């Protein structure tokens, strides 16, 4: 990429030089062109990547179709483990989907400046993760073709949904989250789509971006409403982010199942969600920055900050891992004590538990070292551990709690089937496929915001 970004070549390796880079960098035009360049360029590897992940997505649809036609008996679920991979994946994906809006909204409200380079990226990740998550509540049903019964509509049967259950809450929460995130993301995109419209090499592309930009002109009035709306969106999205995973945690916390029946779940889930979401941002960002040559926009400073966020959320998660068994012991409840103090650490799924502890609590401690925080590949490895750990944590919460509850007579092991694994892998593929499409066609660094920030910084320096 060096050819397209001569202005940014300076100080490439300076670890914390993001601001300097921006300030010293080339003109706005050059900056814009650099950031739009991935849209106009051919990326041979991208074609392969799209092909492979697209194929994976097709496999996912195939597996889902097979499941709908045959029954979820194809999965490993049983009684007592009536929820397993589908719900694990749902919680995992929706958790991943939390980082984007968290970065966009909460860091926006806190005016954290380094957010700017990565928020678009993270928001897109949110959307695509929510798409994956959204598949599961529908397809895990025994009769997904009646999924619309969860929506209150005047049925000729005269029957309505039941709102004491957390599942309709989920429907509304996830839908709201998707729509709000989409609007938030799209709104932020408008000025950059306009820029793409105005820089696109062919008329067709200009027209396509033109339609997508809705005719954005950057008028004084536009900015006036846009800025307020965007800020209030940030204000809305902040509690929304917290509420969505709180709602997801209610799917467990409102029950009386040992291991689920816990008031700590909402913050626990939110922290875990942000943890895995940040890890996923890093997992996507580190290769993308490498492949698209954007080390000057997504700097080591960003990596460092993200790593610190991981460390913080990692400790929140660790704290809950300590509090959970403590609360179980403190409660004196036989069933809770068995689940948290016997079955998890020493039961047949103990390897999952200890894996979770290692991945989520121990591996992240490497990030105390600056060397690990600013080294892209080291950070990538840690992020992968965290991702694995967070998926396993959901396995631990769902399967380990379910497989041994109150009556030992109904205890039973759960073993996933190959369809379970296919669907999990399929969503990863589908997610990457959508994400690569996003990288290919959408300005994935907020150009307008970056320029505005540079302008503000220059003004402050002046």
């Amino acid at each position, binding site marked *: 990429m060096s050819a397209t970004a001569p202005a940014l070549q300076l100080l490439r390796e300076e670890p914390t030089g993001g601001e300097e880079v921006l300030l010293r960098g080339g003109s706005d035009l050059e900056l814009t062109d650099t950031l739009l360049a991935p849209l106009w360029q051919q990326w041979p590897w991208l074609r392969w990547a799209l092909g492979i992940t697209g194929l994976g997505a097709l496999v996912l649809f195939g597996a889902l179709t097979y499941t709908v036609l045959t029954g979820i008996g194809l999965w490993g679920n049983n009684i*007592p483990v009536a929820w397993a991979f589908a719900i694990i994946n749902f919680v995992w994906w929706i958790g991943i989907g939390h980082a984007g809006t968290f970065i966009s909204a909460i860091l926006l409200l806190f005016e954290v400046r380094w957010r700017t380079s990565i928020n678009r990226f993270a928001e897109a990740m949110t959307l695509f993760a929510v798409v994956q998550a959204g598949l599961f509540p529908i397809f895990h*049903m025994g*009769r*997904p073709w009646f999924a619309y019964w969860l929506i209150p509509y005047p049925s000729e049967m005269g029957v309505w949904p039941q709102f004491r*259950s957390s599942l309709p809450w989920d429907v509304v929460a996830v839908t709201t989250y998707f729509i709000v995130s989409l609007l938030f993301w799209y709104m932020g995109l408008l000025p950059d789509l306009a820029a793409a419209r105005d820089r696109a090499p062919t008329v067709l592309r200009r027209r396509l971006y033109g339609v997508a930009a809705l005719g954005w002109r950057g008028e004084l009035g536009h900015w006036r409403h846009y800025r307020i709306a965007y800020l209030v969106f940030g204000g809305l999205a902040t509690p929304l982010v917290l509420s969505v995973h709180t709602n997801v945690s209610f799917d467990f916390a409102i*029950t009386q199942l040992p291991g689920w029946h816990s008031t700590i779940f909402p913050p626990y889930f939110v922290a875990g969600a942000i943890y895995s979401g940040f890890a996923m941002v890093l997992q996507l960002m580190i290769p993308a920055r490498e492949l698209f040559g954007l080390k000057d926009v997504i700097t080591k400073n960003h990596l460092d900050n993200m790593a610190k966020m991981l460390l913080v959320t990692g400790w929140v998660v660790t704290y809950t891992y300590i509090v959970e068994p403590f609360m179980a012991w403190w409660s004196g409840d036989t069933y809770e004590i068995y689940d948290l103090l016997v079955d998890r650490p020493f039961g047949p799924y103990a390897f999952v538990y200890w894996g979770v502890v290692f991945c989520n609590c121990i591996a992240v401690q490497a990030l105390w070292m600056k060397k690990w925080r600013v080294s892209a590949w080291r950070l990538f490895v840690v992020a992968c551990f965290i991702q694995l750990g967070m998926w396993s944590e959901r396995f631990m919460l769902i399967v380990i709690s379910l497989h041994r509850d109150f*009556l030992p007579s109904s205890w039973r092991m759960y073993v996933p089937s190959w369809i379970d694994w296919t669907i999990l892998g399929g969503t990863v593929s589908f997610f990457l496929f959508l994400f690569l499409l996003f990288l290919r066609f959408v300005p994935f660094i907020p150009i307008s915001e970056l320029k505005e920030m540079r302008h503000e910084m220059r003004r402050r320096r002046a």
Partner: protein
Amino acid sequence: MDRDPRISRRVVLQLVGAGATAVGATACSRGAPEHIVPYVEQPPEVTPSVPSRYATVHTLDGYGTGVVAESHEGRPTKLEGNPRHPASLGALGPLEQASLRDLYEPSRLRALSRRGTPVAWHAFASAVSAAPPAGKETHVLLEPTSAPHLVDLVERVRRRGAVVHFDAALPRRNAYDGARRAFGKVVEPRYDLSRAAVVLALDADFLAATRTPHAWARAWASRRRVDAPGGEMSRLYVVEAALSVTGMAADERLPVQRRAVQDVAADLLSEVLALRDRRGLPARQGTSPWARVVARDLAAHPGASVVMAGDAQPPDVHVLAHALNEALGNVGSTVTYGPSPVFEAGEASHDAAALSQAIDAGRVGTLLVLGGDPVYASPRAADLARRLASIGTTAYLGARDTATARACEWTCAALHWLEAWGDALAFDGTPAIAQPLVRPLVDGRSVAQVLAWLAGMGDVASHDLVRDHWRARAPGDFDRFWRESLVSGVIATGTAATMDVAVDWTSLAAVVTRPPSAPVAFEIALLADPKVDDGRFGDNAWLQELPDPVTKLTWDNAALVSPSTAARLGIADGRVLELDVRDRKLTVPALVVPGTAEGVVALAVGYGQRVSGTPAEGIGEDAYGLRTSSATWFDEVEVRVTDETRALALSQEHSSMLDRPIVLTRTAAEYRDDPAFAKPHEEPTETLYDLRPDAPHQWGMTIDLDACTGCSACVVACMAENNVPTVGKGGVRLGRAMHWIRIDRYFSGDPRAPQALVQPMLCQHCEKAPCEYVCPVNATVHSHDGLNEMIYNRCVGTRFCSNNCPYKVRRFNFFNYNAGKAPSMALLMNPDVTVRARGVMEKCSYCVQRIREVEIVARREQRRIADGEIATACQQTCPTGAISFGDIADPSTAVSRVRRNGRLYAVLHDLGTEPRTRYLARITNPNPELHPA
């Protein structure tokens, strides 16, 4: 051809579609047009939608059990016990109930054939009745029978020169020989357990073994229910090798190898005689302390105890049991004797060797095997298949496609007992007429019809055979006798009188003084299977999927070993063992069952059938292969551990209660000292929610764990009543069994002598049901009369309800379990219960269809529902009457009375679910002398 005047087969076929699955279509689709097909002429006794009920009788190896069959528009859908029949008293076990399924089983023999080629009846009949070549005879092999009309026919056939043998895979020879040795003749003991304060079972599973009357379990249970602290209850001692249903109910259980039971019995007799009257017998040396204590207990209850010996024990143990009963003064009080209902019981015609010898001698020209599967079940020494090949004409009549059917030249489909007329005697000789419920679904004949042909009577309808037999014997007006016999299901005047017999004490000296048999390293104990019996129910998915009452194993048999034996061998569940009995080898997976005697490898017979294309094919291993003609029930065995492991389909994988309040149990003494022990598990809990069902009737159930034996009759009753599907071995292994009621079995205490606890677990119909509030679509809600309703057609299948059910009684249709079933299986379906589609939850409904039917009738008649008018299927069939059901809002109902019992408690009461199903804690009555403090 058999004719039944009442039911046209056409009607049955028209209704094939009636049990079709309920698809979840709402009104948004225009359904395919349906048709109404009325009768041409409606039979007067049929009201469409209102089931008819007919009394009939089911027979196992000659022992009849009265049945009331429910028929919907001409197709039997449910079997219940006949309350007037002495063997049933309204109860049925798993086998009798499940035999209904065999009627519709698509793999049953459907026609007549010769080596696979279809033939007509007359070809079959003339071939088998042709005179055998000179010097040869016609031999007929029958299953043991008590049917009076068959006895007639047997006599006629014999008069025409044919030789008739009787053979059972599970012979009762030991009992008959024992009686003969003790009394000089074959008699059948009858026990009055309701008057027995002490019961001693010597390897006798009298609570669940498949030929003992359910009446015994009921009588036993009547002495077990403790109504108040310090209340009277009987004490049950069990000496056995493998844990049985009776063993699980025991207060004191002594696990020993089968060969050692005789020593215990001899010890006991010697000690009892020492306390009562020596009767001229020498004292036995070195009796065990256990025997001394038990003998004291027995002797302390003269005339109020019962000693019984099991069929697997050699004749001497039966002799000892008879002697003990006589010595204890039980005869005439708790024990009486009568003739065996089985025709020629214990006589030469029952000698299995006779037929083999006749074949080997070349005397058999024609052999007819009418029922059973001797080629599969005979001791391999007999090698019947090879012998059959040497016979000129061989013919088989049977319901199933068996090894014997394959080995015979001619085969004829046997009519199911619900398709033909017949009769049978109960254990006490009470006769009953078996009337068919449906016109034959196959082209076949009954045993009687074949015998009639052999007797030269031509092709006679079974109806005529039975009717003519009884016409000659009916007192008074025959038509009236016939009608009354059919209506009541018993011919009450026919009960056989008791016989006065006396033990021949002189013969006992040798038995009492015989030195103890030396224990062997490993003993194989062959068990009669509570599910497939001798193998005859191998094709029955209900029974294959029924968890074994003790081991909880489905779709398989396994080598049962005790935990210590397993430790000695270094094995765990599923590890394949090679068993070697006198060079007969069998590889079979092991299953560790606490309570199995040390050094015993117990294995059920009836599995390992190999007839291709039948459901039984390849399920389990064939234990008959280890049998020799000299050792039918136990033998020494060499055990080798192989490297192979096989997965077993257990319906329950964990057996410890972990001190959780699941099955509450106390000894009688503890209960006396702490009468309120159950109270904390019963008292109302604090709740924020005051919404209560408000209908006049409030349904509730109680289950008395004192009475429940775990026999699993309720499980089959529920399957039949509620169209519960089977999921196969793979499904059970994955944890997807569909049983609405299951019997949980826990072990507590010392694993060598564990206490086994059983608990029927079904939907508890919680007032504050955790399943309900998590359902997003109102598919499980509460009714006004307090039921936890499950509405299949509203269910979208989130399974959230199951996650939140602390009792895990909800079942999910992971697949369409009714898809691909033979059309005939649709006839089995109860039309009053929706057949569930794929993807929906289901669970116990308290048989809501029965509640609603009664409710509609009561409303129509403008009256309240009377107590006892509604019985759930499980309650109805329970041999011990452990289950009560009724209106808990009305203090005068039976269930309300039970709910006032001090033993009442709720499982997992502290969760605040307020279950409507309550249990009565189990009180055991151990002998304190055996447990010195």
